[in-house]
């Protein structure tokens, strides 16, 4: 499964969600599919996309929050899995695209390439609904089910280590930030 195809497969659901992504391929590919004012791309601060998602989910329980995370980022904030589990925001779907590498900085392998199981760690942290999927069909089904379910879900989507040609897009960081804030605050 390619990450871009996975995001494209669920893109139709994202207009009624609030989406926070990590930097790198996830941000560039989602923008290439089509940016929306309810999408925020955390273009640095690796590890904190899930924490931002938690902050939004706690602040605004009426919103459905989707975090598009990655294996490298999750590995930088493993403690964050325990905080997610502890507060169990029922309006948050945590997707981890696991390509077993740090793709945007040369493709060096992460620990998931040697057996570290992120869904297993999420489950051990206390997140009750976790799964690992590796096909488009199972990803689409798992994501749709997670959106429909009123509970915190972590879905680890195993994807190929291929990405876009470049990572810098024409959406400036602060433009994205203020547009997203306006969307969240209904302005």
């Amino acid at each position, binding site marked *: 499964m390619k990450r871009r195809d996975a995001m494209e497969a669920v893109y139709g659901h994202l207009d009624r969600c609030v989406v926070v992504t990590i930097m790198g391929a996830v941000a560039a590919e989602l923008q290439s599919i089509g940016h929306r004012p309810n999408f925020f791309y955390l273009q640095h601060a690796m590890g904190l996309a899930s924490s931002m998602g938690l902050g939004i989910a706690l602040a605004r329980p009426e919103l459905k929050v989707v975090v598009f995370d990655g294996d490298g980022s999750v590995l930088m904030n493993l403690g964050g899995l325990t905080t997610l589990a502890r507060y169990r925001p029922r309006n948050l779907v945590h997707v981890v695209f696991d390509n077993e590498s740090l793709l945007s900085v040369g493709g060096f392998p992460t620990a998931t390439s040697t057996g570290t199981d992120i869904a297993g760690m999420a489950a051990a942290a206390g997140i009750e609904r976790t799964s690992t999927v590796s096909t488009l069909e199972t990803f689409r089904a798992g994501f749709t089910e997670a959106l429909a379910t009123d509970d915190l879900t972590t879905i680890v989507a195993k994807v190929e280590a291929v990405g876009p040609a470049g990572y810098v897009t024409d959406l400036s960081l602060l433009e994205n930030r203020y547009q997203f804030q306006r969307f*969240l605050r209904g302005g």
Partner: protein
Amino acid sequence: MPVSIANSKLIYESLKDVGVRLLSALPETWLVHLIRMAEDDREMQLVRLAKEEEGVGISAGAHLAGVSSAMLMQNHGFLASVNGIVSCAQLYRIPLLMLISHRGEFGERDPWQTEGGGVTIHVLDALRIPHERLDSPEQVRPRIRKAHTLAASASRPVALLLCRDLMWEES
């Protein structure tokens, strides 16, 4: 444990008065009463962290979503959060109100706290984060209010140092 309940209460009420409704925290001795007050307050969302840097992301998300927040941490927790402060809060112009217990100054008895005290202000300065000390009760309310105002108008992190003479009732 001679942590000042009265001054903790003053800090807590000042945070409530400026509209803080989400508090992320990692326990440390000087912060125990503040954390308990947040725990007992139905109007406050307390988020207990595994590591302080998470609090930067949580506050950023809460801010964009319209909820005012603050971070409660020890200076060593601030040191552990530096990348999040720089590459989330500063990069994205997030008004972050940080309350940092300033361990390791004169009077510190715990040997393990003594390195952090000497570098905290230098790191704040290097990061261009405006900061003030809270040494006495009469400073608490106005400085929290002014720190909150500057964070909002500048859209940047600001820090208040919770110092020994305010937090610890023992000479």
